[in-house]
């Protein structure tokens, strides 16, 4: 089936359905407050006018899509990017700690995976704890990490990046263990017949075999890393970043701001995942992979 019929039409029609539903709910959810306002102002607007009013409140319960779009557009393109109300600026602050944490996390994950694959003791003793480590809601621990590190004098990017690191090392470690173990016995035997040393087997067989696994898990890791960075901004009362926008929006009931910050976060997430995906495809092609 052609992609238009199999993918684009269903996806767009469902998205359109979501937008319609969104408008309906915006009217329903904002109606009580609007009715209250009208009663106090002694107005009795007609149905159409009433619906129009529910969709243009300054602090609606659920902002209408066009309100979010306008706010997003204003804060992204019309503001100078050095202004701290600019979404580009805030997204950049979050992005920088995401990327730093992602880099740390990927490196840590790879190191752990190499250790686990080569040292039996680590495999038996560390692996269960790595899995258990993810049942700890680290995001809940985030405020403490940040406050404690601030007490030692480490502030700014690093504490947030550490939370991202914690969230992103796990998928990479698990994926890389799988990837480094993916060469079959036949291939390992072949290396053996070549009289290859352990390091040669590692660099020439295990590492190339693990690359597809690495990129798949990096996609998960980069999304987790962004979540870590956003949540890391919450407890510090950070002045900038998408998390800070969410928090200040929550304090001052600026619902439209919250929604546009969410949109910004989602776009950053989608871009990050896309970049990792493209990098993966490039690496695959550079290594001589053929399209399946």
């Amino acid at each position: 089936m052609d992609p238009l019929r199999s993918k684009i039409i269903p996806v767009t029609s469902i998205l359109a359905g979501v937008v319609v539903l969104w408008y309906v709910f915006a009217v329903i959810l904002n109606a009580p407050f609007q009715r209250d306002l009208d009663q106090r102002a002694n107005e009795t607007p007609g149905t159409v006018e009433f619906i129009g009013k529910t969709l243009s409140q300054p602090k609606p319960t659920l902002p209408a899509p066009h309100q979010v779009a306008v706010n997003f557009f204003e804060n992204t393109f019309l503001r100078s990017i050095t202004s701290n109300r600019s979404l580009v600026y805030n997204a950049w602050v979050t992005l920088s700690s995401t990327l730093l944490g992602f880099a740390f996390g990927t490196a840590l994950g790879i190191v752990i995976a190499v250790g686990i694959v080569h040292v039996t003791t680590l495999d038996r003793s560390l692996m269960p704890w790595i899995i258990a480590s993810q049942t700890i809601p680290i995001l809940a621990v985030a405020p403490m990490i940040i406050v404690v590190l601030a007490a030692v004098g480490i502030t700014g990017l690093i504490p947030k990046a550490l939370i991202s690191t914690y969230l992103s090392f796990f998928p990479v470690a698990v994926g890389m263990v799988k990837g480094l173990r993916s060469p079959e016995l036949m291939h390992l035997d072949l290396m053996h017949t070549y009289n290859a040393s352990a390091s040669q087997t590692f660099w020439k067989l295990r590492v190339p075999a693990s690359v597809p696994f690495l990129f798949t898990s990096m996609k998960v890791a980069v999304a987790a890393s962004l979540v870590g960075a956003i949540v890391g901004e919450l407890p510090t009362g950070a002045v900038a970043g998408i998390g800070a926008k969410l928090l200040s929006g929550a304090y001052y009931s600026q619902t439209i701001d919250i929604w546009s910050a969410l949109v910004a976060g989602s776009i950053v997430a989608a871009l990050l995942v896309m970049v990792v995906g493209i990098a993966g495809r490039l690496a695959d092609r550079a290594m001589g992979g053929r399209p399946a």
Partner: protein
Amino acid sequence: MTWPKSSWQAVLAILFCIVAFALGAMSTPEAAALAEPAATVAFPYMGTKGLILGLLLIAALVSTLRLAPLVEAVVLFVGAHVAAWLLVKGIGGFEGTALAPYFLVLAAAWLLAWRCVALLSSLRPASSGAKTALRLIIPAIFGAWILIIWEAVTRGAGIPFILLPPPSAIGARIANSLPILGSDVRQTIFKAVLIGYIVGNLAGFVVAILADRVPFLRRGLLPIGNMVSALPIIGVAPIMVMWFGFDWPSKAAVVIIMTFFPMLVNTVAGLAASGHMQRDLMRTYASGYWPTLLKLRLPAAMPFIFNALKINSTLALIGAIVAEFFGTPVVGMGFRISTEVGRMNIDMVWAEIAVAALAGSVFYGVVALVERAVTFWHPSVRGG
């Protein structure tokens, strides 16, 4: 060559012990006492220093003999852990006075424990009971050593309580504030997490079945679901708190949204997992959509569904706790963590984290156990 059969851990441990002995005083009070033999100053390890060093040396030397690996492991286990226990117990009352030999002895004990774990993990027991026991003991020793090193270093080096309290203090705090922890768990886990988890998973499951019946819906929902699971959904927390108020329903709503998409995507993938042959067989039996779904496709989808349930078990905890940062009644784990950090009661925060970790592990463990019971036919459970 039959003797000695040395391991690098044992050799290094012996070396550390000798250096520790040569350096002399384990702590500053002992150094003072040595400098002034006439004065009678109390110092740590007055009677036990020889015992600790002796234990470690004997254990290390015994391990170089040609013994059965199990015997060697037991000797190392006893030597390393008794020495570590004496070491940690002895520093009590003299926190922050430890000198280099203290840490060398600690390192020696740790090396012996490592050797012990290495021996245990090289064992290949025949009976399945022993295998299970080994699978539990090895990580347990590893975990215990994280705690021992944490305790010994925080107390020996006198790390400020506010930065990192020793595990014993956290344990004491847990024991002393059980009622508070209990009410927090009730608020966060039994109300917000469980309700949100059940509703979110059920909703995801029902929509997945619906999407399975209507191919148009499936083709549209699946790419969207895949994309949404990469988004920072946790950001809806402030909105939910505004809509549903400060109490648990807003947290449950966040959990529902966070758990919905993983369940949807995994169930749809799982429903496609049954093979063509199997579906053809069902058709030859003249079974319709629903019998095929119930008897073939849902059981075949169970590994995927449980995968989602496992992912969601951690997501649900995270969602509920983070949502509490945005406003909550004066109870709940997220509330307690954020307020106690502000009051610098770090031991209470750690107590809460320990409880959260325990709850998360139990939650995950229960899901994993149910999975083993339900997907008993799967190769990963049957043990291939």
